[in-house]
Structure formats: C-alpha cells, structure tokens
C-alpha cells in the first residue's frame, strides 16, 4: 500500500497530520487525520479552586480564549447555583459578540481567503493573506486589520485584559460598562455591521459569481449528509451565548433538543486504535464508522451546522442572508424550515452570515438600556458541587463540566471543545476529497493536496493550545510510499505554502 503523508498542515491551529493510504492500483484506500494531543490538562486542574477555571482554561487555546473563558464562567454559574442577572448576561454576550466578529473575520480573510479569494490553483506563494490583500486590495486589508483591532479593544475593555480575559465570575462579571464606553461600543458595532455586509458582498462577487467555485462548492467531493448540532434560543434561532442544544437529522427533522447539562446522555465518544483523539457521536444513533446518513451517529458542529440546526437568525439582516443562503443553494422549505445544506464548503458562507448576526446582536446589546447597569456582581452563597457550562465556540459547541468538593476544589474536569465534535466529519471529508482527486496515474500536485487541505480547513479546526514554541524544522512533509512501504517521493512544504522538492 502506498502512503502519502501531509504533515503538518499549514494554516491549521496546532499541527496536524493527514495520512492517505493508496492501494495497489494507486487509488485512495483510507485517509486518516491525526494530531498530537496535549497531555494532562484535566489532571493539571484537579485540586485547584474552581473559580480559577475561567483564567486557566482560556490558556488552552490562543485562538479562542474568550470561548473557554465564557464556557468556564457559565460552568461556575451552575456549579455555585447562581443565576446571573439579565444585565450580566447581556454584558457577557456583548463581549462574546465582539470576539465572534474578530474570529470569523480572521478566518474568512486569512484562511478561507487563500482557498477562495485567491483560489486553490493560485501560485503557492500567493495562497496566504498577502495574496488575499493583493486580490481584494490594500484598502480591504486595512479594514480587516481595523476590524480586528477595534474588536480587540472592546474585548480588552469588557474582559479586563487584552488577550486572556479575566472578567468572568460565578453569577457575575467583574466590570460594568459606563455610558461613555457604551457609546464607543455602539459605534464599533455599527462599523462591524457594515463590515459584515461588505464581507458578504466580497463572497458574492468573488465566489458566487465564479462558476468554477460554485461548482466546487456543489461538488460531491465536498458533500456529506450527517446530523447537525447547534445552540438555539427559545425561537429556535441561532444563539452563540446561551440556549438549548438542538440536533437535526440529515433531512432536517429535529432529532433531539436538550439542556447543555444533559450532554452525557446524548453524546458518547468513540476510541480508534490509530489516534489519541476521541470521536464524539450521537449515543442513541450509535457509532457505525466514518459514514454519512441517518443510521450513522456522526454529527457536525460548525457555522453550517448551526444554521442547519436552527429555524433562522434572530436579527433582521442576518435572517435575510440566511434565506438567501438556502434559496441560492436550492434547499426546499419543509414544514416551515429549510432542509439542511450538506455542501461542506458552504461553511465559509455560513460563517459570514454568523459574522453579520454577531455584529447585529452586538449593536442591539450596545443599545440596550440595561447594558450600563452597575450591578454586575453577586455574593455567592450556595455550596458548589457540580456544573456544566456551554457556549457555541466559533468552531463548534463547547462544553465545560466541573465537579468540586464542598470547598470548591476541583475533583473532576471534562471538556468537549469545539473542534472535537467535528473530528469524525473532518476525517470523512479528507477521505472523500482524496478519493475524488487522487486517481491512478494522476500526478499529485500541490493543487490537489491543497484541495484535500481545503476539506478540513473549512471546519476551521483548532487542535491545540496557545503554545507556540519556535521550531527548528517544522515543514509540511509529503511522503509517497510504494506498495512495500518504501519512499518513492518526498515533498516538503514550508510556511506560506512554498514547495520544495
């Protein structure tokens, strides 16, 4: 069996490894997606005071510390049996929307951008943010940087610290917002709405207007019919901060809706011999392998999943974009809601619709009279025991589950992070893309490998934490082996997608 190894994957948070096994005929037999796991986080937390968790867990990941901070803070609410006031919930959500705006913006322009804006067959040296800037113009690049910086400013203002926020408290938030700050945030939120609308137009102009891209989005190579998960509000609209977990089946019918604290009744984890990763699946459906369909417990939790799992968006312009998305992609309405879109590359579009929702929601919250309520802390009176906190991280549903002794010292910690939900779908997407693009006699070009990488990049996977040691040598390596396992070709790809033989 021939083996092609792509290791690590550029532009992936953390470093991963894709192994593609070819059979005697040179066809793809299997594809595996592997990443090294960081070790010992749960053990590291045990015996520590639970109230430290919002500050410890936001060190798990340098990409979405805000998501961990928020899930941990909500887990503390539950652990200490304290219900935050409506003002506190709004303040937290406004902070979280600023984070979503910057995270989704960065993903589209720095990750989706190289794949779509510049194109999968563009010269390797252009498939990075510099290539995107070249294509869309320096002015747009400036807007991306401005968007990041103004929302980082909001995150710092509300979260108490620039990169790793510290404001989350059981039942509260450490810092209230004054009127002057509120006005500043309102102005920033308006800019965010404009920027989100502009980004959707960029997607229209560059992707939807290009038949080649549209065909690729609609192609079977990037299509999977699975269950979809997302958090919804009382109206079954997408919500990032709070709500019930809703799962729909591949036909779009509600399969289950449950409170986040009941996750263990609905989600189980599959262990495979070839990786340390655990693959979550729907317990009731059961694990049937890495396969599509109603009989397979594989589910997906991404921007596309959240749209598929919801009936609509809670803000007007995002709702318009939502309807356009399903109409354009040919989804029919069944019993008042759109059937799911299964084209995985449409996740990039869904992410921009979420960007618009986050911006609109941030503006609503900034205009809410309650948002400047100075009473943002409560005295915690109840003894802690057990708590689950959940938010939608940009990369999927994020769950923190803690147990403590009567003094609040942690005795158990369990985390299901956003990307984990998507491990099985990612493995399936990589295999399918490889199968459709690698055939007997086909030259393995960088473009082909890039399409395989596109199959997992659309999930926006975040595999690791904020560690970023400088490596001595950390190239992307492609090893091709013959049927006996001997190396017949070795390609190495360095940062910014330069390729060397």
């Amino acid at each position, binding site marked *: 069996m021939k083996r092609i190894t792509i290791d690590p994957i550029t532009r992936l948070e953390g470093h991963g490894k894709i192994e593609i096994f070819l059979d005697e005929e040179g066809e793809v037999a299997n594809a595996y997606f592997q990443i090294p796991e960081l070790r010992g986080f749960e053990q590291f937390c045990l015996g520590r005071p639970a109230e430290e968790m919002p500050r410890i867990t936001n060190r798990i990941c340098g990409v979405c510390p805000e998501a961990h901070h928020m899930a941990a803070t909500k887990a503390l609410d539950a652990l200490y049996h304290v219900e935050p006031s409506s003002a506190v919930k709004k303040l937290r959500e406004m902070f979280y929307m600023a984070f979503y705006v910057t995270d989704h913006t960065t993903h589209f322009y720095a990750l989706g951008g190289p794949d779509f804006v510049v194109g999968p067959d563009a010269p390797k040296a252009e498939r990075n943010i510099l290539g995107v800037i070249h294509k869309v113009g320096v002015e747009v690049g400036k807007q991306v940087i401005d968007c990041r910086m103004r929302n980082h400013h909001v995150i710092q203002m509300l979260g108490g610290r620039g990169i790793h926020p510290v404001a989350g408290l059981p039942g509260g938030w450490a810092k209230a917002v004054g009127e002057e700050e509120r006005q500043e945030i309102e102005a920033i939120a308006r800019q965010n709405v404009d920027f989100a609308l502009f980004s959707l137009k960029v997607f229209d102009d560059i992707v939807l207007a290009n038949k080649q891209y549209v065909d690729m989005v609609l192609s079977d190579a990037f299509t999977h019919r699975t269950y979809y998960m997302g958090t919804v509000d009382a109206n079954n609209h997408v919500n990032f901060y709070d709500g019930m977990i809703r799962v729909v089946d591949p036909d779009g019918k509600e399969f289950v809706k449950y409170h986040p604290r009941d996750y263990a009744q609905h989600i189980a984890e599959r262990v495979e011999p070839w990786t340390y990763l655990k693959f979550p699946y729907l317990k009731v459906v059961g694990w049937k392998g890495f396969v599509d369909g109603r009989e397979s417990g594989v589910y997906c939790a991404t921007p596309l999943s959240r749209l598929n799992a919801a009936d609509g968006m809670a803000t007007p312009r995002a709702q318009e974009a939502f309807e356009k998305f399903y109409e354009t992609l040919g989804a029919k309405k069944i019993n008042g809601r759109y059937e799911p879109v299964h084209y995985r590359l449409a996740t990039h579009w869904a992410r921009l619709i979420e960007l618009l929702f986050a911006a609109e929601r941030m503006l609503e919250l900034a205009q809410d009279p309650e948002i400047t309520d100075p009473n943002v802390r409560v005295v915690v009176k109840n003894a802690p025991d057990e708590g689950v906190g959940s938010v939608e991280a940009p990369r999927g549903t994020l769950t923190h589950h803690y147990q403590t002794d009567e003094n609040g010292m942690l005795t158990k910690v369990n985390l299901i992070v956003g990307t984990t939900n998507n491990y099985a779908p990612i493995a399936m997407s990589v295999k399918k893309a490889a199968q459709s693009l690698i055939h007997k006699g086909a030259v393995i070009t960088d473009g082909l490998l890039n399409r395989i990488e596109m199959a997992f990049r659309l999930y926006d996977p975040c595999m690791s934490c904020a560690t970023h040691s*400088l490596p001595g040598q950390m190239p992307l390596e492609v090893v091709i082996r013959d049927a006996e396992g001997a190396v017949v070709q070795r390609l190495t790809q360095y940062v910014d997608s330069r390729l060397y033989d």
Partner: protein
Amino acid sequence: MSHTLIIGLGNPILTDDGVGVQVARAVEDALPPHLRDEVRVTEAAVGGLRLMEMMAGYRRVILIDAMLGPDPAGTLRRLTLPELETISPTQHSASAHDASLITALEAGRRMGLPLPDDIVIYAIAAENVVDFGEQPTPAVAQAIPRAVEAVINEIVHSS
C-alpha cells in the same frame, strides 16, 4: 509611548513553553530605573497577526520565546527576523486564523501600520511543550538567568 516593547511569548501553563513569559517577568523586575519609561514589558500567547498588531507604534521589539529544534534544552539563541524566516513556522501558531509572523509583518506594512524595523528574538531551546505544568524542565529553568542578563544587556547597550 514607550519606544521598546519586550514580549514574553508562550503558554505559562505548558511546561517549557512558558519560559519566554518567565524571562519577560524577570526582565521587568530587573530593568534599571532609568529605562522604565521607555521600555514596556508584556506577555502574550499569540502569534502571527495578533503579535504583529501588538508591535504597532514601537521602534524596537524584543521577543522572548521557547524554541524546538536540534539544540540541547536550555540553549539560548539570539535571532534576527531574517534568521527566523529561515526556520519555518511556529509550531502551534501556524494557524487556521493566522499567518506566520513574517507574513503578518509584511501584511501590516503593506497596510500602512507603523511597525518596527528592529525586531530581535531570544529563543530558548525547550524540551517539553506538550504536558501541562507551570514550571519549566530543569535545563530550561537554568537558562532563565542567562536569558534575562542577555536581554538587559541588549536594552542597556542600545538605549
């Protein structure tokens, strides 16, 4: 605004990965009083774009980070930006959300951000960056005083 920014990079709860942060904290404590106004010390667990954005407005930046490579654990190296370019992306921050620091700096310059030309990296060879822990391994811990001295010398002699 200060003219020099010192950034300790790394995750403080990931064993050797936090060594840059520890060195930066020690540098802040050891700064001669006459330099406290013009030197700002901070820490970060970010790379690429966000790291680039942090540098905007400073004339000089000194990064302190852990490094994985062929050197024995605890080896201290002083690198310039062009030298960094030759050794490929950072391990965990070659990110879905990000570009390499070199690319990010180039992008920032093209968009007119005031970025420093003078960027120096002090890198300490790490042994363990996969286990959670607040203390570096012994060989890496021993490098901290040397790294602090080197950074202080760099600031004093060029300020």
